[in-house]
């Protein structure tokens, strides 16, 4: 029934679905939950949790076969897409930049949204926290940041969002409040007051939690930058990070508007095979078990963290289609019409359990391209 069926709606799944649909394929996406973008930082690293440039990355991920043009093409496509969605990403994979995280630690990243700015070696910074958001503690962040950047002069400010809440507020709650001008103005006023009262000298950079607006992030960022007279950055930390939510919501809306069919709250519990490969997926919804047939399938269920792979006493299991996997999580005898992307490609592409956003972008792009080529060849053959 579908040309392409994608399993999983993390970054790999969502990008694969969008790009497959853009090629004109009837595309479906099957997913259990909302996908792991929600739990991410929204910045795209090369090697998660470790430093290392392009060279180390290609060795670690065994990317020797990938051509430079493919890599550049994938990154370009991602940037074009996020720009169109009103949430542009900047940066490039050849020149990683250091950014500060919600813990105060520094990591190098490749692609990041405009709400994030790199951190310098010296100068004056001010970390701003909100009383209501307990996941972001300026004093604690300062301690860690100072260790990483001894030459920085760091001050901390804590302000109130001025709203009562019936639940523990997250960075996302703060971001939704800052979408509204009156809350934004109230925060700016408090920062200015504290700067004056405590005689904090004008900094080069303000560090905020990942909270600078959701829908109106652009205006929020501009206002803070203008009113505070310095560069402003978000430091993503404990999820939900607004940096990631913005990306997730926009990708999802785009996929839906393009006409990708979402089968959410479903679990893939196996597949039916024929001589050409996979014929259909068996999916379980609340109380039905049905089949979704397709010509080609993209496996974007993630690795161990995403739930696509499971380490058991009998070895590594691929959970969705129940295909045999080797000790490295690679599918043995991968069906011809199945295209694993991102962390579904086994442990060789995961580090600390995750793939790093850049690899997700690259492999989704590469697989959709490959699938497209296959479809063309297949079309010629069957003509």
């Amino acid at each position, binding site marked *: 029934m579908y040309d392409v069926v994608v399993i999983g709606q993390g970054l790999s799944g969502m990008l694969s679905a969008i790009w497959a649909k853009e090629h004109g394929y009837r595309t*479906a996406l099957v997913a259990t939950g909302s996908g792991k973008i*929600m739990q991410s930082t929204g910045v795209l690293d090369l090697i998660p949790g470790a430093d290392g440039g392009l060279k180390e990355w290609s060795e670690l991920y065994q990317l020797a076969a990938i051509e430079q043009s493919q890599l550049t093409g994938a990154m370009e496509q991602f940037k074009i897409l996020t720009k169109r969605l009103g949430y542009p990403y900047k940066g490039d994979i050849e020149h990683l930049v250091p950014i500060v995280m919600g813990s105060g630690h520094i990591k190098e990243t490749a692609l990041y949204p405009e709400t994030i700015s790199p951190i310098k070696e010296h100068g004056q910074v001010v970390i701003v926290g909100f009383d209501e958001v307990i996941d972001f503690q300026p004093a604690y962040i300062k301690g860690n940041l100072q260790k990483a950047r001894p030459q920085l002069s760091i001050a901390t400010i804590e302000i109130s969002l001025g709203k009562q*809440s019936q639940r523990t507020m997250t960075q996302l709650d703060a971001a939704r409040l800052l979408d509204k001008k009156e809350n934004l103005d109230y925060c700016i006023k408090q920062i200015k007051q504290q700067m004056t009262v405590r005689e904090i000298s004008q900094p080069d950079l303000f560090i905020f939690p990942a909270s600078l607006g959701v829908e109106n992030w652009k205006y929020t960022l501009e206002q803070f930058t203008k009113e505070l007279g310095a560069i402003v950055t978000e430091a993503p930390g404990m999820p939900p990070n607004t940096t990631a939510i913005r990306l997730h919501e926009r990708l999802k809306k785009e996929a839906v508007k393009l006409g990708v069919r*979402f089968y959410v*709250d479903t679990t893939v519990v196996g597949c039916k095979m024929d001589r050409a490969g996979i014929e259909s997926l068996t999916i379980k919804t609340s109380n039905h078990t049905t089949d979704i047939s397709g010509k080609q399938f993209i496996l974007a269920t993630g690795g161990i963290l995403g739930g696509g792979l499971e380490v058991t006493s009998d070895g590594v299991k691929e959970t969705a289609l129940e295909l045999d996997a080797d000790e490295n999580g690679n599918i043995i005898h991968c069906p011809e019409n199945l295209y694993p992307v991102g962390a579904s490609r086994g442990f060789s592409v995961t580090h600390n359990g995750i793939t790093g956003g850049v690899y997700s972008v690259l492999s989704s792009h590469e697989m959709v391209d490959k699938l497209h080529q296959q479809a063309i060849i297949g079309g010629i053959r069957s003509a």
Partner: protein
Amino acid sequence: MLELKLDELTFDKCLKCNACVSSCPVANTTLEFGGPKHLGPELKRLMNNQGIIDDKRIEFCTLCGSCDMSCPENVHVTTLTAFAKAIHSDKSGTKFRDFVLSNAEWVGKLASAFAPVTNFAMGMKPVRKVMEIVMDIPAERQFPKYRFHNFNRVYKKKTASTERKVAYFAGCYATFNAPEVAMSFIKVMEHNGIEVVKPDQKCCGVPMFANGQMKQGLKNANHNITSFLEYTRQGYDVVLTCTSCTLAFKKEYVSFLNTEEAKELASHVYDADEYLRLLKESGELNMNFAPMKVRAGYYAPCHMKAQGIGNPAMDILELIPGYEIQDVGAGCCGQCGTFGFKTEKYDVSMAIGRPMAEAVKEVDADYTVTECGMCKNQLDQLTDKTVKHPMQIVAESYERAKVLS
């Protein structure tokens, strides 16, 4: 006290990842709501250790199911919040207004019996002002119209003799407010050589679950299960045109009751468009559609998305030659059944609905298509586009094709 019969282990899988809170339309709009994570798995965990807790904040849950859809661990959050609602109304009592709203069926029976008067009165400002004061139903909130010639009066067929046979559950909205939707569905089935019967049925229970009237809701559920099983056991398929009723038949009856009968019935239940798609896949669908030159926008109700069936309405409408349809890509409408009729929820309801109205405006289609009567109510209030049920469009295309041939 109400016992939760679901597999107790299900909520233990909650990792507190916050995906549900980030996806909750109410939590994203107001800080007054405790959120699905806290009032679902966390509250349940606490209650298991400490005894029953009545948490007032649960009133803000609309049971839209966005949390269930977002959960990467497959936790049935709405099952937990529905029971938290039941506990709340057991302990704190039910407002008269909520009791009335939860009884959509007898309101429908009464209102449609005096339909011209009801509709007239509901349109009068002084009447609405009194309703606001006495009932806490906001005067600005538009109401759907009631029909004297309701579906119960016009359709009574109880047996079918065609090869495929459909047992139709109309639901309160199509019965009392939009019999044209029910009649369109019957026409569509006729064009496919399928006879439709209307078994004995009561309100699906969704408005009751949403207002904490769990006992009454489950009573209705058991009534419907018994009534419809009689048909499925004779080879009938159960088809519905309201996505909320469909979700109740497919999911909530099973989750709340956890009985073999509920499970048996659920396996025979289809959304109307899903059923047509099934006919198409098995090569049985009448493909004689008259072309229609239309550019429509589709609004997906939460309870359609929650069924995990893709987008059958668009799949079917796209079969009509010349018919263009695009999903407007909107989230929850904010009406959420009875939620949007409550004064203290009205601002939240409107705030949730605004992005939907924006999305409809952005696509700027000829009209909006949606299956849900309550979503239509909000679309009617917040947008200037006509709203149609997919069955009305399919019926029209079939009818025109018949005239042409």
